[in-house]
């Protein structure tokens, strides 16, 4: 009915270029060019644009059109057609993904900005400026646009694959269920026949026993089958729930047009392992160690072969004595210990611990 309505209205449709109507030429197809969206019939396009690009034949439209860009119209309303085209083009360029943004808010801002650009282009506001922006963005973010496109494609294909898989699985399940039903039915029938033959051949006394036995066998079989089915079903469920996520690729520094993109975090180069955690073994705060110190007493040892033979180095002595000379110089015991004791009220304090030790070991063994 709808097709009829369209065709009836098309009856009196007239090509604006050659004025031939569908009435005279029922096979007539109308084509449009996204350059200016002027409608014309196929024969006109062939006639005018076969020999290369030419101006649009519609009066007042001076756009240069090419034959290969002509296509059939998808939507009846030419404005909708145009908007869809624009939208597709802009979306292809501004194809940032949500995971590329710092926050949801930033992503929403981006979506709004994109809609604004589309609206501008559709309603012809600041067209040149917006176009320039888009072109600039496209040239600057070639790589990320390309990456996102491939991602989208992958997603689409994987989605398709998943749908196919699900359908296939559903089909298999259905088939299995049917088979199962068939088998069960056949078994029941066979069992009944067997039961009947045995009843017919046996004596009347063990009829009841045979009947009970036959029933039991049937039950056992069906329960075994049921557990088998359960197992298969679980396996399938596990298969279905396997993650098919595609890891997103982070990209794009903050560009002029799009704000709030997540910064690409290049992992920091791993620092060389420091077993002392920043502590420099030879660094000291009170003194700097010298190669030698004037001392009559020590000079005797410096060149004494019986001392040196064992591998003794006088510098060991220097570093130890100097460390002990200043170690703890600014540890103020009275302040620090009282602070420490105050901090460890719940835990046994040093003094309390000593008191406990005294109670248990020293005085306690009485």
């Amino acid at each position, binding site marked *: 009915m709808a097709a009829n309505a369209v065709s009836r209205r098309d009856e009196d449709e007239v090509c604006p270029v050659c004025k031939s109507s569908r009435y005279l030429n029922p096979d007539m197809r109308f084509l449009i060019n996204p350059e200016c969206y002027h409608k014309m019939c196929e024969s006109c396009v062939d006639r005018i644009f076969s020999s290369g690009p030419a101006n649009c034949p519609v009066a007042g439209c001076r756009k240069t059109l090419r034959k290969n860009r002509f296509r059939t119209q998808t939507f009846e309303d030419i404005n909708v057609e145009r908007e869809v085209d624009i939208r597709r083009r802009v979306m292809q360029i501004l194809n940032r993904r949500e995971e590329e943004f710092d926050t949801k808010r930033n992503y929403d801002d981006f979506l709004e900005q994109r809609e604004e650009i589309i609206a501008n282009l559709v309603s012809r506001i600041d067209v040149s400026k917006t176009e320039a922006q888009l072109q600039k963005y496209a040239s600057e973010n070639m790589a990320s646009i390309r990456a996102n496109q491939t991602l989208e494609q992958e997603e689409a294909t994987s989605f398709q694959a998943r749908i196919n898989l699900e359908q296939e699985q559903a089909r298999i399940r259905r088939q299995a269920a049917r088979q199962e039903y068939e088998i069960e039915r056949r078994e029941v029938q066979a069992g009944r026949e067997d039961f009947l033959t045995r009843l017919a051949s046996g004596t009347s006394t063990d009829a009841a026993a045979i009947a009970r036995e036959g029933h039991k066998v049937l039950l056992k079989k069906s329960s075994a089958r049921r557990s088998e089915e359960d197992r298969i079903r679980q396996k399938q469920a596990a298969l279905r729930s396997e993650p098919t996520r595609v890891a997103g690729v982070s990209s794009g520094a903050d560009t002029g047009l799009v704000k709030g993109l997540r910064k690409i975090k290049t992992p920091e180069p791993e620092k060389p392992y420091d077993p002392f955690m920043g*502590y420099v073994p030879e*660094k*000291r*705060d*009170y*003194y*700097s160690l*010298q190669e030698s*110190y*004037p*001392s009559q007493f020590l000079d005797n040892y410096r060149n004494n072969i019986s001392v040196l033979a064992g591998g003794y180095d006088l510098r060991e002595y*220097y570093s*130890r*004595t*100097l*460390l*002990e*000379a*200043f*170690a*703890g*110089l*600014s*540890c*103020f*015991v*009275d302040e*620090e*210990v*009282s602070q420490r*004791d105050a901090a460890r009220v719940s835990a046994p304090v*040093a*003094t309390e*611990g*000593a*008191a406990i*030790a*005294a*109670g248990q*070991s*020293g*005085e306690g*063994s*009485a």
Partner: protein
Amino acid sequence: MIEDDIYRASSQYRLWSYTESSLQSLRATTNTVASERVRAALRRSREQQSATSSAAGTPQPGSDMDGKNKDEKEIECLTPEEELVLVRYYCEKTLELGETYRPPMPTMARATAIQYLRRFYITNSPMTYHPKSIMACALFVATKTENYYMSLRQFADGIPGETSPEDVIAPEFLLMQGLRFTFDIRHPFRGLEGGVMELQAIADGQGQPAPHLPHETAEDLQQGLLSIAPPPTPSKSMSDRIAVAHGKTRDLLKTAAQMTDAYFLYTPSQIWLSAFLVADRPLAEFLLDVKLGGPVTATIPTPETDENGLLNPLYEIRSKLHRVLTECSALLQSYTPLSSDPVQMKNLKRIAKKLYHCQNPEKVNLKRESAQAPVSQPDSGAVTSESESERLAKKRKLEQEQMARQGNDVFGPDLVQRTKP
């Protein structure tokens, strides 16, 4: 400061550093606990004695009760101060004991032994364990921890009087327990050597500036050292002066630092610097100025502020250190040897007499106690334990039989017991 953090990791700082008040309260607690125990022990021993005497002689209940009450009143225990004097006396004795050996024991070993004694008697009372027995043991442990090897026999022979090797090591574990198994004592002696080495280097014009004050040169330091105030006793050259101060400080560290509570209240570097201050004040002040910068006078504080408007941390340390070192040197100077003072000796004799009466009778024979220590089973359980072991043996045998029976069955025993038809 890194050096300070290194010191903070030591057991001396973590377990054996106290404030004056906490040290006092700890000693008071130890004293009260020990006094109660001594009283209880004496009462027990009297009861036992009276029980045996009454069993042997004619029972006189009325007079016995009176006597007991009188005895209880008589027990008068040592005060914490008296205990401290006593311990100090035995610390001095330790020094003398170390001197009797040929060759004399190194200062480090003796000082370590003294510190062991002091640490031990923070949580133990002389009324419980007599310092005389602990002293020898402390010195013997110190020879081991200070890597000055001496056989036990040799050591026991060196002690004047009749002392057997068993007597020496009897309280060893007890002592270690009292030390909380921390044997590391940070002495100020080696630190003093380091400080003197630095001063000598500066005097020879080889000094290096402290890392926090890198602008000074060796010449500046040498000039600074030469321009300090003259010493109390004039000396020929700067290195002579340093050597004299070194010797004086060393003597002070050997005696005064050991006999006072300095080790508990201050760090080793503070102790040797305060002793150095006592020996030669201008020299010690110079060393501090070189290390931490800026002379500090207690009366006129000169707060240096850096660009952040904060007090220079070095200055803060320096002024705090000034106070601490002054306190510590006062403590060191307050010491006078007991043996040189007749008044103190008299007091000591009185304390010793008092101790004779309030010694815990159950702790006198340490040898027996240490021999008993590893035996964990009480004697009273001997009879029951025999029957117990018999029972256990029976049970084991039964189990083995059962195992053997079940061993024949490939799949083990039945899960539920079979009911016999």
